[in-house]
């Protein structure tokens, strides 16, 4: 065990022709990255971009929370505060969570899971990454120009003002990022449709792929509407066309309709891929077949469809007719059913499984806990009478952080840890990984749970100051935020450290049965020379642990049949 030589390490003493080549070391130089068409490299670049954005957005969050330590002014006045929460929200939503799981992790994993050599349109994939960069640049421009204080929702008439360059820059950013997201989604749908390997029917697909498929559907059906809305708002700002601007006879509520028609489905763009990750993580780390496969798959699609019919729940107090409000409220309730089905299935998968508390699993469990709270509080907001009280308070802030930060981002963290050995070819320190996870979990709850209480007591959102009686809870929340920030830095440090000092990862460290674990870690440039034969991705008995390798190998390769891995179980359900 001790003498595993990492022949893939470019710094190893092996002459190149004896080195094991993989996608990371098969070519060198910045050009081989920036002009690569390899989905894995593109995914890595996304992952880095997302991480940088996450810390930038996080920095703003820390500043915001610091300001809120006391009702008096500490760091900034109201104007700066407004700008800061706008940038925080916009960066976190558009640059971190939306591309996080699908574009970064999905890009790396999806084709490998499919046993394909690449996504259907590699060039478009690279193009969408460049669009992402371009969009991020516009956001940075908005930051530098300053004065963007509309909130991430860009509500009119805040967002229609005489010559406000930063609003225009940010909107251009949103527009461009939207197209990045559309192209990723389009690529994934086509890849899943046309490039599945022999033996992989729709219902033999890993659930992560189902989730990405449902996500991609939303991406291509909802994002164009955001695109045109952003474009119209830009045109409104530049030419004053009087569409959304009430002073020219426009209708600001129309903007809200357009915006939420995209942005509610977009919250499912954020959560669905994370749910897919959890389906994988829970099954693999419990070493048990996923429970209720079809229910999970169908519920992803159901969420995607229902997600289009509920946007009005963000506008209960914006002046829509009562009948419409009641209908939106009812549909919003029903959208929580598929989510609950999933949670039920995950819990049942764990039941009588042999759960290993690896870091990935710890993040998975955190997800379950936090998502349950986030989803249930959504129901309070979907109830008309309570929403009138809770709308625009910290309750909403806590709700969407439970689902966006607590669930989507936890899903991303789980995914990164689950597939890290595959992506980097290295094992990270489970000890530090788990410590970081604990910190993230505690820090998160400490930050946002008090905000539910603040909200029910009437603390409105988006204010830089508050009544003195709210201070204790605000201080608690800020403390939690610091813990959260430090822990996520620790998480990244642990992972980065592993690149340099980590043990070489085996092909299948956790015992997953889906195709990506059949490929070496890290995968070779072309993933698979020939499409592999796919079986049921959740028959965990098809792989058994091998001491020598330190990972799992297909049961039929394990020389002596020691009972545990009799049949590969390919056709089992």
């Amino acid at each position: 065990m001790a003498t595993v030589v990492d022949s893939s390490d470019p710094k190893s003493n092996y002459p190149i022709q004896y080195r094991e080549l993989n996608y990371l070391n098969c070519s060198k130089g910045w050009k081989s990255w920036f002009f690569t068409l390899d989905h894995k490299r593109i995914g890595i670049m996304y992952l880095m971009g997302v991480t940088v954005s996450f810390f930038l957005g996080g920095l703003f969050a820390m500043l915001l929370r610091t300001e809120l330590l006391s009702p008096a002014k500490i760091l900034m006045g109201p104007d700066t505060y407004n700008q800061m929460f706008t940038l925080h929200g916009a960066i976190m939503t558009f640059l971190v969570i939306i591309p996080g799981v699908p574009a970064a992790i999905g890009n790396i994993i999806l084709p490998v899971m499919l046993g394909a050599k690449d996504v259907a349109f590699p060039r478009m994939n690279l193009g969408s990454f460049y669009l992402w960069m371009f969009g991020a640049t516009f956001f940075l421009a908005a930051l530098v120009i300053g004065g963007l204080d509309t909130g991430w929702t860009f509500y009119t008439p805040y967002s229609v003002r005489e010559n406000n360059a930063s609003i225009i820059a940010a909107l251009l950013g949103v527009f461009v990022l939207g197209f990045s997201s559309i192209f990723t989604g389009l690529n994934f749908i086509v890849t899943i449709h046309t490039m599945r390997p022999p033996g992989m029917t729709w219902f033999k697909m890993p659930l992560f792929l189902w989730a990405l498929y449902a996500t991609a559907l939303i991406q291509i059906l909802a994002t164009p509407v955001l695109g045109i809305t952003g474009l119209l708002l830009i045109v409104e700002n530049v030419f004053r066309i009087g569409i959304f601007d009430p002073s020219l006879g426009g209708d600001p509520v129309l903007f809200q309709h357009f915006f939420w028609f995209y942005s509610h489905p977009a919250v499912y763009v954020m959560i669905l891929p994370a749910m897919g990750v959890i389906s994988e993580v829970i099954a693999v780390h419990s070493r048990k077949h996923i429970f209720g496969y079809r229910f999970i798959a169908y519920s992803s699609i159901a969420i995607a469809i229902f997600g289009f019919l509920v946007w009005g729940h963000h506008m209960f107090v914006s002046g829509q007719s009562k009948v419409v409000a009641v209908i939106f409220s009812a549909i919003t309730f029903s959208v929580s059913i598929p989510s609950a089905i999933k949670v039920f299935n995950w819990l049942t998968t764990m039941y009588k499984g042999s759960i290993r508390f690896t870091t990935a699993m710890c993040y998975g469990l955190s997800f379950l806990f936090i998502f349950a709270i986030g989803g249930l509080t959504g129901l309070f907001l979907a109830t008309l009478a309570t929403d009138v009280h809770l709308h625009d308070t910290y309750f909403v802030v806590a709700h969407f952080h439970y689902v966006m930060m607590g669930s989507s981002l936890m899903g991303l963290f789980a995914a990164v840890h689950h597939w890290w050995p595959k992506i980097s070819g290295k094992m990270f320190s489970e000890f530090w990984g788990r410590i970081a996870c604990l910190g993230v979990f505690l820090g998160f709850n400490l930050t946002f749970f008090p905000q539910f209480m603040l909200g029910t007591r009437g603390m409105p959102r988006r204010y830089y100051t508050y009544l003195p009686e709210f201070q204790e809870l605000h201080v608690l929340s800020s403390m939690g935020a610091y813990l959260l920030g430090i822990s996520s830095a620790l998480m990244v440090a642990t992972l980065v450290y592993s690149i340099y000092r980590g043990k070489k990862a085996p092909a299948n460290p956790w015992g997953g049965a889906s195709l990506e674990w059949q490929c070496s870690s890290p995968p070779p440039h072309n993933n698979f020379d020939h499409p592999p034969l796919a079986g049921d991705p959740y028959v965990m008995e098809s792989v058994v642990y091998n001491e020598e390798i330190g990972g799992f190998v297909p049961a039929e390769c394990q020389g002596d049949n020691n009972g545990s891995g009799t049949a590969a179980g390919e056709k089992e359900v």
Partner: protein
Amino acid sequence: MNTAATTPTDEHADSHDHEHHDPRLAHHFDSHQQQFDTGKLGIWLFLVTEVLFFSGLFGFYAVYRSLHPEVFLYASQFLDTVLGAANTIVLLFSSLTMAWGVRCAQLGQTKGLLTCLVITLACAAIFLGVKSFEYTEKAHHGLLWAGMYQSPEHHEAAAVPAAAGAVESGDHGAAHADDHSDDALFEKTKHTLSYMTTVLWAVILLSGIGLAALFKNPNQKTMAAVLGCVLISAIGLQLGAYASIGYHHFGHAAEPTAQEIEMAETVPAEYAKQKEKIPEPKLAGTFFSVYFCMTGLHAIHIIGGMIAISWLIVRTVHGAFTTYYFGAVDFIGLYWHLVDLIWIYLFPLLYLIN
């Protein structure tokens, strides 16, 4: 385990030499059929996103038309139905040649394909030419989006006695009313139009340069083809613009003829009354916001289509397409039909309101 999937010789990231050496088949596909199906699904999905992209505008049209029907009734009369119809025909024809081109590509008839593509490109350019005339002319009458809109009433204020002339189409009517100043206006229009076409020329030229840069190993053939596309586009554009200006001028000079007067005396008298009954609504500019947003976005799509078609032309000249590899033609053809279809909706929605 596929650990040994890469051989040590596979050094360079993006040079794949596998079993197949067919340069027309991308490395990650198993067969031409798979490659074609993939592209086909991709383009259909892309078209879905395009439809949704426009659907925002259509939604917005629906909302405002239902809220302010009088605005649409009043303002749409300023659009020139004849020019709109002409453009519709031009686009429909281009769709025909495009479809024909796809058929040629499937049959491997390179010459036929080239001819069809060239005609399609020319039609697109003509469309743009007519459109630029329409824009310029609107601009000169102050018929702009809400923020810049100037009421045309000041033109017509002096026109009460000649109201009968103002029947057929508002701006002609206005022209009647104040012949002298309108002639000047017309000259100005012509002048600005030349600015507008110059700008479009620049766009075409730049696109041409960009297109040429897109090709990896350009040779003389490539350059000639790109240049040809640029020329076709520029000539088509100019043709469209001059044709519409000619039509306008012709209509202008010929208007106070017997025929016109007769028209004015017979049917349109009611119209004239009707029209007088419609006072200028408050939000008339909103109609032009809708008009410019929708047709502007559509025009951008036309330009995009022209670039794509030019790309096809260059590749056709190089003989890239064969009976088993014509996906690109098919896909861009589909895109072109969609752009066409959108115009088919825009035309009645904007021009034919009664």
